[in-house]
């Protein structure tokens, strides 16, 4: 048998004999399986919401068609309802389905709005208004999903399993005896690390497999495999750092402190620092300031001025003589002109947000946890990028909707069934996996390179591994 396989077998036998190992395994298994089930439950709840929204939309459209049929067949008269069959109050429900692998990594998608109603009166600054109703504390804390377990908890499990990888034997004086068998120190350490790493990864893979089976489609298998690859690379990075630290001349206590310190810095302090740096250099523009700018744009022209502007654009435009119809069309033209003035304000605001996000994306490389989280949520389809793609699609849909109906409303043109059936519908197009890969290749390469560099450093350090108890314990 290969020496490395022999080491791994021996190591597995030794680990199994320790009660603390089984305690940790219990915690690891519970956390992983719970996280998987929690993710599946969230995915199913969100899917049910989406289905309910689509059902609602179907009912509304059926009601609209029934109404237009009544109008066409003369059961609704214009003298009783001057606004009959005008596209004043029809709209479309728009909804974002949960990401393909959102059961594995919810990310911040429990925070983002995912449904809205688009009609002629929707405005650029309030296009998506349906905020998730979760308790703000829940939204601030986040859910327990496999992404959380992988990024935060599994490194701690690895640390707990490896902090005394060599130090325990060194402190007891047995290391010299062990290595004199002869046992190569590199082979020993790597075999030990492999057993522990595989055990930790195995539970995550099992839980993610269960979650994938219960909540995802077979067509997303490639995404899942990429997700698992990210998990392997991320845990490989942590294994590298653990190996590097334990291969030094440190006692187990000092190793544990160093590793937990690294965890605190990478996963707690660095993200907080990055948040502060982004706030100083490229702060998210305040919504308060944005609303002021929107308001100023809205009132830049009075109603009469807005109507005159519209008449200049459309020389044939005339308001009806009087009555409810005149009021509606007048209000709609004023609304339309205000919306056009607001659109560049909104675009400028979005551009500033993009600048802040771009800076965040650059600075995240100071925290491997942030990098891994970004890749995991991108693959899962619960990233900010997908949310922004949804928002962009809603804007495009709104433009298409206005393109079909705005002129009809201004001309007081009644809708026919054929025209109604020809109205655009909203369908969110999932990004092809190639586009996601293009986004994640740099962060994945970073994680891989960091893991490789740490392991190389550890292997070199192991060559000078001291056998005696470290000074000062």
């Amino acid at each position, binding site marked *: 048998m290969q020496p490395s396989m022999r080491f791994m077998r021996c190591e597995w036998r030794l680990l199994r004999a320790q009660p603390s190992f089984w305690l940790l395994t219990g915690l690891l298994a519970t956390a992983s399986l719970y996280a998987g089930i929690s993710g599946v439950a969230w995915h199913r*709840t969100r899917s049910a*919401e989406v289905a309910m*929204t689509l059902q*609602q939309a179907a009912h509304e459209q059926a009601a609209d068609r029934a109404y237009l049929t009544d109008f066409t067949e003369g059961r609704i008269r214009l003298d009783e309802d001057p606004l009959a069959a005008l596209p004043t109050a029809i709209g479309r429900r728009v909804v974002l389905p949960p990401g393909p692998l959102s059961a594995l990594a919810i*990310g*911040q998608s429990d*925070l*983002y709005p*995912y449904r809205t109603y688009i009609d002629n009166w929707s405005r650029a600054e*309030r296009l998506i*208004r*349906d*905020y998730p*109703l979760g*308790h*703000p*504390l829940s*939204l*601030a*804390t986040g*859910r*327990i999903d496999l992404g959380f377990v992988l990024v935060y908890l599994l490194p701690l499990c690895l640390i*707990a399993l490896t902090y005394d990888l060599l130090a325990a034997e060194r402190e007891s004086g047995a290391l010299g005896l062990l290595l004199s068998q002869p046992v190569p120190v590199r082979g020993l350490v790597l075999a030990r690390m492999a057993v522990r790493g595989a055990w930790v990864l195995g539970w995550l893979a099992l839980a993610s497999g269960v979650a994938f089976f219960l909540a995802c489609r077979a067509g997303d298998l490639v995404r899942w495999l990429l997700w698992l690859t990210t998990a392997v690379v991320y845990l490989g990075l942590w294994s590298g750092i653990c190996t590097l630290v334990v291969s030094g001349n440190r006692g*187990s*206590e000092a190793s*544990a*402190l160093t590793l*937990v310190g690294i965890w605190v810095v990478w996963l*707690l*302090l660095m*993200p*907080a*620092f*990055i*948040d*502060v740096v982004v*706030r*100083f250099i490229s702060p*998210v523009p*305040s*919504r*308060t*300031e*944005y*609303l*002021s700018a929107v*308001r*100023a744009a809205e009132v830049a022209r009075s109603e*009469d001025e807005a109507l005159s502007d519209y008449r200049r654009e459309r020389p044939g435009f005339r308001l009806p003589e009087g009555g409810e119809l005149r*009021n509606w069309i007048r209000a709609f033209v004023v609304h339309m002109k205000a919306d056009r003035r607001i659109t560049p304000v909104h675009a400028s605001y979005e551009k500033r*947000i993009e600048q*802040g*996000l771009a800076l*965040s994306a650059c600075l*995240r490389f100071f*925290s491997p*946890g*942030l990098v891994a989280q970004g890749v995991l949520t991108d693959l899962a389809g619960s990233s*900010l990028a997908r*949310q922004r793609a949804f928002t962009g699609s809603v804007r495009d849909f709104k433009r298409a909707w206005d393109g079909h109906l705005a002129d009809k409303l201004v001309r007081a043109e009644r809708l026919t069934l054929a025209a109604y059936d020809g109205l655009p519908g909203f369908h969110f197009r999932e990004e092809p996996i190639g586009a996601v890969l293009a986004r994640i290749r740099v962060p994945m390469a970073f994680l891989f390179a960091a893991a490789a560099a740490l392991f190389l450093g550890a292997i070199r350090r192991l060559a000078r591994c001291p056998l005696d108890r470290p000074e000062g314990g």
Partner: protein
Amino acid sequence: MNSRLGKLSMFAVLRVCRKELVAITRDGRLKTLALLLFSLLCAALLSGWQTRRDLDAERRAAEHVDAESYRSQGARNPHDAAHFGQTAFKPLGPLALFDPGLVSYVGSAVWLEAHRMNLAEYRPAEDAGENHRFGSLCAAWLLQWIAPPFVILLAYHAFAGERERGTLRLLLGLGVSPRELLAGKLLALTVTLGALLIPAMGLASLLLFLQEGTEDLSDIPARSLVLCVGYGLYLCTVAGIAIAVSLQSASARSALIALLGYWLITTLVLPRVATELAELAFPTPGNAEFHAALERDLREGLNGHDPFEASARALEARLLERYGVRRTEDLPVSFAGVLLQAGEERGYRVFENHYRALWARYDAQERIHRVLSLVSPMIAIRSLSMAVAGTDRFHHEHFVLAAEAHRRRIVGMLNRYLIEHGAGQDFNYIAGEALWAEIPRFEYRPPSLRQVLARHYPELLILFAWAASVWWLAWRYSRSPRPM
């Protein structure tokens, strides 16, 4: 001189304290960590102060623009003005520089428009990128998350380390009682933390004093005191747990592992477990379900058998009979205005019914969090800190309700004006700018500290119980510590 405090010799206690302080100051790692924590606290306070100052200035500017826009919207129908609406901007309390709490997750402005009660819009966390939830650097977060491991590092080897080095037997053999040892080490811990935190508190007080704004700051000293007491109890608890574990552990290493494990579970895992359990026990309704129920009740009435069209016809019949006319055009009041106001009042009941049910669900979820704070003092201090800083859900809902009351005032005024002046013209009636000037501005007073403490005194009690329990435990263990 050998004064005694009960059975303790103050001389011995002070000598132990002095020795501990010398050891701490000689430990380069601890000094570095202390300096780092202090720098982070100062940076967080300064950053929070600047952010709050900037946001406050923007809010005032936005309120001014909103008010001016409303006044200068030109002559138009009052109902158009009701749709033109106003925005109520949420002020950020002065203590938000210490603990911004849920501010990023609850929205900063409420749109006050006709027909619809809105919750606050625009959650800053949506625009901030995915790292925002990892942690936002503020003084509260540092004291809740980072200060405990620092306290653990100071205290985990207090007894276990002495035991390992063999100095515990020597000290006990010299006649130092275990409780004098405990008291001395506790004093050293207190002095160290005090040296870190008191200057940071001084900076916080200065920044509070420099806060600009017209808010009533009279309860800030009382709120600050409550925060000091709360965090003092919390860090006391952490120190007590560390000492108690150190007293009982076989080695410093096992004490450290146990304490770090406890810190990670109570700080990282349990808050999320609390969230999950709260959601399982009292699930929040989904958006689709909630809004569908709201829209149904608006259409069909709260009892499901009172469609608005039928109510409107009944109202028309009553009015025609009351004024002895046959057509709504002949009424001496604007029927459109009457119908609008009736619709609004119907809506008020529906919105209240649904939103209060939602908030009652949130209250029930918070009770789960409170129960779990019996296991994790961090959950208790987090709730207390946000509440006292004015950045929790209660303060936000208080603001939303105040904004809604203002919305009803505005819409009611506009509808009444239309009713009284728009007879025969309804939506063709044009009101002049004098009307907009009469609409009052939104003035908001946040809840008092008394109201906050009435809701959150259990958290204070829990923290006190934690601190008392762990120190009682440490005191008991110190009676006969393991010498080897």
